[in-house]
């Protein structure tokens, strides 16, 4: 066991750093990341690990911080604590076998990932989708988006020190999960989209439930606003914190509410219209303040817009098949070629790129996670802010770690 013991605590060895003086003195060395991080640090500053086991990093994100008192001199997120080899699995499994992974890449908005992968395969293989399935996809995906935003809302405010909102949010979210359970069969990690349709048809109970849920949540939203959004403590805490200018959005490739909170009206549903989104009347919420509060407001407004889409989709839900009669068997072969399919997830642009050489399994699948690009700008955004504000910034980026680490 002694050899493994040294490996487990591979910190003290720290070979790279001790060679050029990073940890040469008798200080306690962390691991290679902290040693590497320290090389660029000022000698008087404190180096601190925030995460992976930290309540406000929403999972196992680790942020290395160089602190000057309460101020962050430098921050460096360290990823990979939840790297689950999705891209490797995509190469060794057939598309149908890989589908369950899509529920686990981003567990909060699983259906958007479902859609991105299914869409890429459908585009590559030329599979058609019946109209009813498109509507069902829209309804479930938007319900899922609301559940994601609700959970973000609760968790973000929990980070900022408010406990009541998460109780309220989960209250409504449980109703949503009941509905999605009727439709998809699971509570969280949905993988109910199929190549050429959706797994099950909507039951009357589901349609009825959605019809009742929309006005219910709509009646709750003013209470959310009164409870939290107009709360002066929250506003003081997150207004003008974490300003992300537009050029930063472009340099990092951020998308979703992060881009829309900075005044960039970019939504994949409008920019690259897919499915039947062009048939619905909805708005892209946009704020120009560029701060955490702007991103907060965008997400809250998106809940309302999603409700609008769901309402219209349920009312105009066409009859017909939920699977295309010519939908392929699960063991189908992908034709050779490449395809890229992007959808708008709760966190931004989700993209799946498939390259296939005509074999049983795809040759290469790349998952473009919005959180990956959004989180990348944290280091620049958090420079010079207070440590407490870094929590507010980190939360406002709404990251889901498995999606970032993949």
């Amino acid at each position: 066991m002694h050899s493994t013991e040294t490996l487990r605590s591979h910190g003290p060895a720290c070979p790279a750093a001790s060679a050029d003086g990073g940890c040469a003195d008798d200080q306690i060395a962390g691991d290679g990341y902290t040693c590497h991080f320290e090389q660029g640090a000022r000698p008087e500053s404190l180096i601190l690990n925030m995460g992976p086991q930290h309540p406000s990093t929403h999972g196992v994100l680790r942020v290395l911080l160089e602190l000057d008192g309460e101020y962050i001199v430098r921050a460096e997120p360290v990823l990979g604590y939840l790297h689950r080899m999705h891209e490797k699995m995509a190469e060794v499994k057939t598309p149908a076998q890989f589908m369950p992974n899509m529920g686990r890449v981003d567990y909060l908005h699983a259906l958007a990932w479902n859609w991105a992968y299914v869409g890429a395969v459908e585009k590559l293989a030329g599979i058609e989708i019946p109209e009813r399935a498109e509507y069902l996809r829209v309804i479930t995906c938007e319900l899922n988006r609301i559940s994601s935003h609700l959970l973000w809302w609760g968790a973000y405010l929990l980070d900022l020190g408010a406990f009541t909102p998460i109780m309220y949010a989960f209250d409504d979210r449980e109703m949503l999960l009941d509905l999605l359970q009727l439709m998809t069969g699971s509570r969280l990690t949905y993988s109910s989209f199929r190549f050429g349709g959706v797994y099950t048809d909507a039951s009357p109970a589901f349609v009825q439930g959605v019809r009742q849920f929309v006005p219910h949540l709509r009646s709750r939203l003013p209470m959310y606003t009164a409870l939290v959004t107009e709360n002066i403590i929250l506003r003081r805490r997150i207004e003008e914190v974490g300003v992300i200018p537009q050029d930063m959005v472009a340099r990092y490739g951020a998308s979703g509410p992060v881009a829309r909170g900075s005044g960039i009206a970019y939504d994949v549903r409008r920019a690259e219209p897919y499915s039947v989104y062009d048939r619905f009347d909805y708005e892209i919420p946009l704020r120009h303040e560029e701060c955490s509060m702007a991103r907060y407001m965008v997400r809250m407004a998106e809940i309302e817009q999603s409700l609008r889409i769901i309402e219209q989709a349920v009312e105009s839900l066409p009859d017909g098949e939920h699977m295309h009669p010519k939908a392929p068997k699960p063991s189908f072969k992908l034709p050779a070629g490449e395809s890229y399919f992007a959808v708008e997830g709760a966190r931004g642009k989700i993209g799946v790129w498939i390259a296939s050489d005509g074999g049983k399994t795809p040759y290469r699948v790349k998952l473009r996670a919005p959180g990956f690009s959004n989180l990348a700008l944290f280091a620049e955004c958090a420079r010079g802010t207070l440590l407490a504000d870094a929590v507010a910034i980190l939360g406002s980026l709404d990251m889901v770690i498995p999606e970032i680490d993949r």
Partner: protein
Amino acid sequence: MTPDTASVTPDVLLAPLDPAYLADENPARTGLRWSAFLSADALPRAAALLLEAGWHLEDICGLDVREGLMAVYHFDRMTSPGRLAIRVLADRETPVLPSIADIYQGAEWHERETADFYGIAFTGNPNSMPLLLPEGMQGHPLLKDAAARAPLAALLAAQGREDTVLRKAEGFTLLEPAEDAKPAKPAKAKAAATEEGADNA
């Protein structure tokens, strides 16, 4: 939202860099609007031009093919959407590409990820630590066995994608089917790129 930058198409934009191959693609088929092959040296200049014209970097995908290691850079525009794939080939023995992290800061993580998975070294990337893999990890998990590698043409040019080739350098043979390519309907609707006859081995 300046219409002059939004309307500049990549073929005009990248023309001074002399791309080896540039095609106008059918987005309904591949999700791409344009695709280009660039040399590694031209990559930072291309990135600078694209940033100025309002493009953002979506992702960098590594790809292990018979011809070597390839990095595919996907760019998109917020103002007038349309995806551009820039493909850069690196040598298998010494896979080195220039970093664009000083132009697109978001590329830093994408490059580190590609370095983790494929072992491509990006010169100029500010951080040399592995991003997703643990320290002390040996090997690069997404590299393929020699037997499993496919030729690039089988992946990118095999289907009837109705590309319009806008530029093609002399002696550009990457997208022409190799002789031992799998007979997965190679004759049916060849890519436009394969029409020019230069033999490939």
